């Protein structure tokens, strides 16, 4: 695998291979020296055009645990504020010859564009409202740990589907792993045609009890340029996952950061059904597996590395 741009580019075998490797990295994360030399000498560039705490830090930690060097580039406080275009920024940074670029932008498709401008492996860490593939992979990983398999499970994705790249990637990934997916939210926040991804659509929580997994999405105020719901209080009254709506055997997930009292009530965030911290923990090992996949594990690199004479040739 050369880049990770979209879940749609993967097969079920790819996902299983990456997540099996993530399980091997879990053992690394549990020991005293949480570092292996697998990617020693490689450079990973974190290019973030949007605020991010957990994604950026977990990519950074993942790269460091594989002994890669990490350069962090945040758009604020950089040449981007001076008016540099995405292409010029990427070309400038490519001069540092990174082996992988982890990129998050507010523009759909930007990661795929960047893949055409550089020889580095590109990992999409969120492009606008389109996709966030590593989040989907870590969610599948968390569910595999929690439930064993996703085959035949009912997963409800509830909330602001329209503004959510997580929803799009997750519907694709959950479906690929054999789960039934239902998206649910107010009609203004469900994009038209989402059924094309292979999911059901509901506009109320009446049948929520049929779900094995409830995946709540964050209300994304920052992406809402108009009023999609009358008020957050009104939204919460109809769609909040709370102790009354969540069953004792259902698994509760959320990509974070949580708006307590909006999409989730405080009590369910702290309930034993919630696997939100497990998702964060999966983030590091799954991103280690993704970096390993694009930099070491996949098909031979298109880019010719300077050949090191092997002992065989010297002999």
């Amino acid at each position, binding site marked *: 695998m050369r880049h990770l741009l979209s879940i749609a580019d993967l097969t079920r075998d790819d996902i299983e*291979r990456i997540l*099996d*490797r993530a*399980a*091997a990295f*879990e*053992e*690394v994360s549990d*020991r*005293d*020296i949480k*570092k*292996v*030399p*697998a*990617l020693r000498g490689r450079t990973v560039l974190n290019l973030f055009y949007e605020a991010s705490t957990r994604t950026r830090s977990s990519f950074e930690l993942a790269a460091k645990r*594989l002994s890669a060097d990490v350069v962090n580039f945040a758009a604020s406080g950089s040449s981007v504020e001076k008016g540099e275009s995405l292409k010029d920024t990427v070309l400038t940074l490519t001069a540092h010859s990174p082996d992988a670029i982890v990129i998050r932008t507010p523009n759909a498709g930007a990661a795929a564009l960047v893949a055409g401008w550089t020889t580095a492996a590109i990992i999409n860490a969120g492009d606008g409202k389109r996709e966030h593939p590593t989040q989907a992979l870590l969610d599948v990983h968390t569910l595999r740990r929690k439930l064993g398999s996703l085959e035949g499970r009912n997963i409800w994705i509830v909330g602001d589907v329209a503004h959510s790249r997580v929803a799009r990637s997750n519907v694709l990934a959950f479906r690929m792993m054999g789960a039934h997916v239902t998206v649910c939210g107010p009609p203004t926040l469900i994009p038209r045609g989402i059924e094309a991804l292979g999911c059901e659509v509901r506009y109320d929580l009446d049948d929520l009890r049929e779900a094995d997994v409830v995946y709540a999405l964050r209300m994304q105020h920052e992406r809402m340029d108009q009023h999609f719901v009358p008020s957050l209080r009104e939204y919460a009254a109809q769609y909040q996952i709370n102790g009354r709506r969540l069953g004792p055997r259902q698994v509760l997930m959320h990509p974070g950061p949580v708006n307590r009292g909006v999409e989730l009530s405080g009590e369910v965030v702290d309930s034993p059904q919630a696997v939100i911290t497990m998702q964060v923990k999966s983030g590091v090992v799954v991103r280690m597996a993704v970096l*390993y*996949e694009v930099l*070491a*594990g*996949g*098909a*031979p690199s298109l880019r010719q*590395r300077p050949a*090191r004479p*092997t*002992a*065989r040739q010297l*002999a």
Partner: protein
Amino acid sequence: MTDPKVVLDSEDMRRTLTRLAHEIVENGGDADRLALVGIHRRGAVLAARLRELLADLHDIDVPLGDLDISFYRDDVTTRTGAPVVHATHLDFDVDARTIVIVDDVLFTGRTVRAAIEALFDYGRPARVQLAVLADRGHRELPLRPDYVGKNLPTARGERVYVRVTELDGEDSVTITEPAAAAA
């Protein structure tokens, strides 16, 4: 194409492993501080067998671990294809122990180097020894095994295959000619 030459059959392998077990007891120092660590995958199988032999023959119960060295290899950049990764299992404290690393074939020594590096990420063993079923020569690193099942002088292009019942259905060590290996 020439048929693979059998250098050890199952009876030979049993005898060889028994001898290795005796030698490990003889030269491994304090039996209480001894531990076996096999390298995935056939080394891990052989380490498990040696552990059983130590228990049967000498009534010594040693901790057993296995090591996956994929993340420590020095050829990640030059190899192609996705390596199959197994998890490492080292459930005991390696500090101050005599660790005997077990592998099937010793060739360039690069795998053993990676295994030693991996091992030291788990602690500081008092001593590290190396036991191999077959030593085929062509070392690229200054390494010497402490326990050798069989010395196999080989040509560089020949392939040495170790088969074990647990994974391959039979016990044998065979050498294949370069032409046959390429075919």
